[in-house]
């Protein structure tokens, strides 16, 4: 045996034994599903004539973050939901299997008030609520929310839906925007969501590669500041009032919003044209709410399906309870019926906490 052979044998013999097993395949598949959901959104910004994917997202942090920072992508804002659908879906014939979307909530219109009047009333209610403190350095903004979204993949003349289960997410975000998100599957029974005790689907700290950290927003009760924040970023060539609804929802999803700040936001939102009083409703957490909606508009020169974005508020506190997005108009090639729920988010609790929990 040569010296080289002896050396090789010695190194081989010192090879540490391996204990344990690789993670189950299911973990990889869950990561793939998560990655696909994220990446399909990103790919949606770069629409090609080939395979195209889009995702309606309510509770997905990537999607939310994408919308949250208009300055990072002015192209996103106005056309973020509707325009993508319009372009992606097209108008040609194609096979279509309708997706089993969640049942829509039942709204009861029992008031002749305008949507604007409802928002202003809610603003007054919120303004009368006690105000919690602002974040201090080192604290985490904790938000717990549940949600579901429909992901649609359009390939050539066919389209198909990705039906991920609803989930309950808890996020802890530092002022610099980094943090941890733990997401678990939820069960849906009709319109009611139930938390499950299943293991975490995803956990990351800091945010995963490719994700951006979005610092917590400095909150203000100055209407001019709030208006600027809601209209922030590079002005896109086309935008619509609906975007403000999205940005407000993003904000509530990322950090606690004091009642007085929310009151200011609602007053700014109340200036939006096209507000609809959608009446009273019981949300997916079983809470009574009042609903105000906005319908998306088509960008100039584009036709296609549109969506209705509905914000649900607590009539008792004026606080935002959740958001629902439904398809209005002709679904065209989307594999859903008119009126189908495209996504929803239910806000469950929020607070500022000093630390994140240990690894579950």
């Amino acid at each position: 045996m040569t010296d080289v052979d002896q050396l090789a044998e010695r190194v081989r013999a010192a090879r540490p034994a391996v204990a344990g097993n690789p993670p189950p395949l299911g973990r990889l598949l869950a990561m793939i599903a998560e990655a696909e959901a994220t990446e399909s959104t990103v790919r949606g910004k770069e629409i090609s004539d080939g395979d195209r994917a889009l995702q309606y997202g309510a509770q997905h942090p990537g999607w939310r973050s994408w919308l949250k920072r208009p300055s990072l992508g002015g192209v996103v804002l106005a056309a973020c939901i509707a325009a993508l659908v319009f372009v992606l879906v097209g108008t040609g014939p194609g096979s279509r299997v309708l997706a089993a979307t969640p049942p829509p909530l039942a709204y009861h219109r029992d008031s002749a008030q305008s949507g604007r009047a409802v928002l202003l009333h809610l603003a007054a209610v919120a303004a009368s609520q006690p105000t919690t403190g602002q974040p201090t350095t080192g604290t985490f903004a904790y938000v717990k929310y549940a949600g579901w979204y429909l992901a649609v993949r359009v390939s050539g003349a066919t389209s198909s839906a990705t039906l991920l289960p609803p989930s309950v997410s808890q996020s802890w975000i530092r002022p610099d925007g980094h943090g941890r998100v733990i997401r678990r599957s939820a069960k849906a029974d009709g319109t009611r969501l139930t938390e499950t005790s299943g293991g975490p689907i995803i956990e990351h700290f800091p945010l995963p590669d490719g994700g951006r950290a979005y610092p917590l927003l400095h909150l203000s009760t100055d209407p001019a500041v709030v208006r600027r924040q809601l209209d922030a970023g590079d002005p896109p060539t086309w935008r619509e009032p609906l975007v403000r609804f999205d940005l407000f929802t993003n904000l509530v999803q990322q950090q606690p919003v004091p009642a007085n700040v929310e009151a200011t936001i609602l007053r700014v939102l109340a200036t939006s044209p096209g507000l609809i009083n959608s009446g009273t409703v019981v949300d997916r957490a079983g809470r009574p709410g009042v609903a105000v909606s906005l319908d998306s508009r088509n960008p100039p020169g584009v036709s296609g399906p549109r969506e209705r974005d509905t914000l649900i508020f607590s009539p008792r506190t004026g606080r935002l309870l959740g958001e629902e997005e439904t398809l209005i108009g002709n679904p065209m090639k989307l594999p859903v019926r008119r009126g189908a729920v495209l996504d929803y988010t239910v806000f469950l609790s929020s607070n500022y906490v000093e630390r994140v929990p240990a690894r579950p």
Partner: protein
Amino acid sequence: MLAGVSAIEKGVEDPEEVAAIGRLYERHAREVFAYAQRRSDSQTAEDVTARVFLVAWRRRTSVPADALPWLYGVARRVLADERRSSRRRASLGRRLGARWLGEVERVDEGGDGSLAAALERLSERDREILLLSYWEDLAPEQVAVVLGCSRSTLAVRLHRARRRLSRALTDGPMHGTEEVGAA
């Protein structure tokens, strides 16, 4: 049907693609996990394994037929990222870096820590060439794929790595670095 595949095959992607990544995982996950665990710990190895195959999924059109060296190459980079981020967080990085040395010390027939010390004194590249060759049993052309170099370059590097290890063993654990030894 692979366990778990049905959970996403209807929605996320083409079922064939999902089945293919499942097959790749079943074929090589243990090897990738072992590779990572020998260089870190079980928890890190689990994370690294999952991340490696997630990369394989994202780059599924460019995974070569002989996938294992390619997967090791990804694992190597993922581990490096892990160590960097671990160092930022705490001293975990040092622990990750030191664990395999303790294992080598424990297992090495010499029992005097000389092999572990000699390996530690090698550059990361030299050490990885040797460990890929002798721990992962890769052929030189496969090691070249992992390290992203040509086969001829790898042959030279492998020769030098062997020589440096041999010299480090001869010099003993208390003597200088490889550069000192080479001088």
